[in-house]
């Protein structure tokens, strides 16, 4: 017998953890469980559809399931179809790598007005997540609140011309929504000053390739700090870019205090750095201000009650990695480093030969689980049906995913 490990969450953190575990100890039984019928989490549903290069890590993860012996178990929600306690009883270690699926809210009046949308929900809709809400109407003058990479992703997608989505996996619905948006201006507003913005400079410089925009950067103050200087330099590169119809404006040092409007948001009210008030007209207000825990795993309670949450240990045989462990900071490489460190710890703490627990036998009889082969059938269908100019067309409902995953088994 060998030790059996269940990883809850098949996104980059979970996959990198499985990779590090199996590299160190190839005979381990590693099961990667996801609540969706499809793997890869935010690589599939968070990384922007026009950043296919970033999604290239999927080739590593595919190898995990195809050659390194990890098992994918999709369409299984922990604490809904099986309790976390039962899973812990069956496996030598359970690792929570389920990310942070909820949107942080601003906590200001007017946030529930129509036309106010959080980036997590909007990103899910753009990426055709099966549980996403409909794509919203944004009007001619949306405002994006936030200065991280998620905000820049939204800005770039909303600013792009249809031609600039060539080679992406943006679906027909999203592509039409973007092409017909009628957006005339896009303002992106940061609470902090420009030098303290959270985006990666390379993400900002990428905006300097956009064909349909005119970019203006307002109020980016100088800084002596080297990290701040890099951000300011990137902003300086794109300031004044283009002569396109769509006006893109960067603003800084504005703290949102209220959203106003009759039937939907019309005005965003901000406090300025010197204590004044500024009112900005908008037809939609998109918040990209971070993520939080949500759902049946009750992450915050688990982390709060943990002896060593910082070190990734939540309890006896229970671990956490990625955003689930550290909060919504850091990109794919940081989650890889996190997973590699945790893999070492787990291997040092669990018995290498296992302890004779039941392992995946506990999952027997659960309905509609999707195997890696099931995902491969979905994947093949998605790439085979890709229209001209797209590398894939995602299946966007759980029912169709499940039907496709089973397709050839029914033929036998």
């Amino acid at each position, binding site marked *: 017998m060998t030790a059996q490990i269940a990883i809850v969450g098949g996104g980059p953190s979970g996959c990198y953890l499985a990779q590090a575990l199996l590299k160190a100890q190839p005979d381990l039984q590693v099961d990667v469980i996801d609540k969706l019928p499809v793997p890869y989490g935010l690589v599939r549903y968070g990384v922007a559809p026009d950043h296919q290069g970033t999604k290239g890590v999927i080739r590593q993860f595919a190898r995990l399931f195809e050659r390194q012996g990890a098992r994918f178990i999709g369409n299984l929600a922990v604490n809904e179809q099986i309790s976390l306690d039962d899973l812990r009883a069956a496996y030598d270690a359970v690792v929570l790598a389920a990310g942070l699926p909820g949107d942080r809210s601003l906590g200001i009046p007017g946030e529930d007005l129509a036309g106010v949308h959080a980036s997590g929900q909007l990103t899910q809709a753009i990426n055709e997540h099966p549980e996403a809400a409909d794509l919203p109407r944004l009007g001619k003058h949306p405002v994006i609140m936030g200065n991280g990479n998620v905000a820049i992703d939204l800005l770039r997608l909303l600013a792009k011309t249809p031609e600039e989505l060539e080679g992406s996996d943006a679906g027909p619905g999203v592509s039409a929504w973007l092409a017909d948006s009628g957006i005339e201006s896009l303002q992106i507003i940061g609470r902090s000053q420009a030098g303290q913005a959270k985006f990666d*400079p390379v993400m900002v410089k990428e905006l300097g390739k956009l064909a349909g925009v005119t970019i203006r950067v307002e109020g980016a103050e100088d800084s002596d700090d080297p990290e701040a200087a890099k951000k300011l330099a990137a902003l300086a590169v794109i300031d004044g870019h283009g002569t396109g119809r769509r006006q893109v404006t960067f603003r800084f040092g504005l703290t949102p205090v209220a959203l106003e409007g009759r039937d939907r948001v019309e005005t965003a009210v901000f406090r300025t750095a010197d204590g004044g008030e500024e009112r900005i007209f908008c037809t939609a207000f998109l918040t990209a201000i971070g993520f939080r825990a949500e759902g049946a795993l009750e992450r915050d309670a688990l982390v709060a009650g943990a002896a060593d949450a910082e070190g990734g240990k939540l309890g006896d045989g229970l671990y956490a990695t990625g955003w689930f462990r550290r909060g919504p900071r850091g990109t794919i490489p940081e989650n890889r480093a996190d997973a590699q460190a945790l893999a070492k710890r787990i291997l040092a703490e669990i018995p290498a030969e296992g302890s004779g627990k039941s392992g995946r036998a506990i999952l027997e009889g659960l309905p509609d689980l999707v195997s890696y082969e099931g995902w491969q059938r979905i994947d093949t269908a998605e790439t085979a049906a890709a229209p001209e100019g797209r590398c894939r067309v995602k299946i966007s409902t759980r029912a169709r995913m499940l039907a496709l995953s089973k397709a050839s088994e029914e033929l036998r």
Partner: protein
Amino acid sequence: MNITLLYGTETGNAEMLAEDIQSELEGGHEVDCQNLEDFAPGDFDRDAFYLLVCSTYGDGELPASAQPFAEAMAAAAPDLSGVHFAIFGLGDSEYDETFNQGSGKLAELLASYGATQLGERIVHDASGDDLAEDLAFPWAEAAVAIAAEKLSEAA
């Protein structure tokens, strides 16, 4: 000929490619594969041939696992004359301004201490249509052929 594959990686893509190249070359040669972060400037051996695989990260920078190596090189300032290498880069043309600068920087670093690059630096584009190994395997075979000639001349 002893071949050492050295990789600089950030997301693991360069590591996977280096391991694939190792499997591809094994059989005909002794091939060792190491992460640059585990390789010291004093480890270079003039009788071996070095195949480097390196990505780019952030704003055209060296990937995380190549950075400690670059720092160690700067501190040790080794004499690498007589050391031969070839280099393959991984990048993403979505960021065209800094496309594949990581592998370029690594090649310059080795050359600046006297090492000799054999063949052209070949680069893969993550936003392109090719698979990295489809470019890298022929690159490695060709580089090894050139090196076999060079190193036998020197011997």
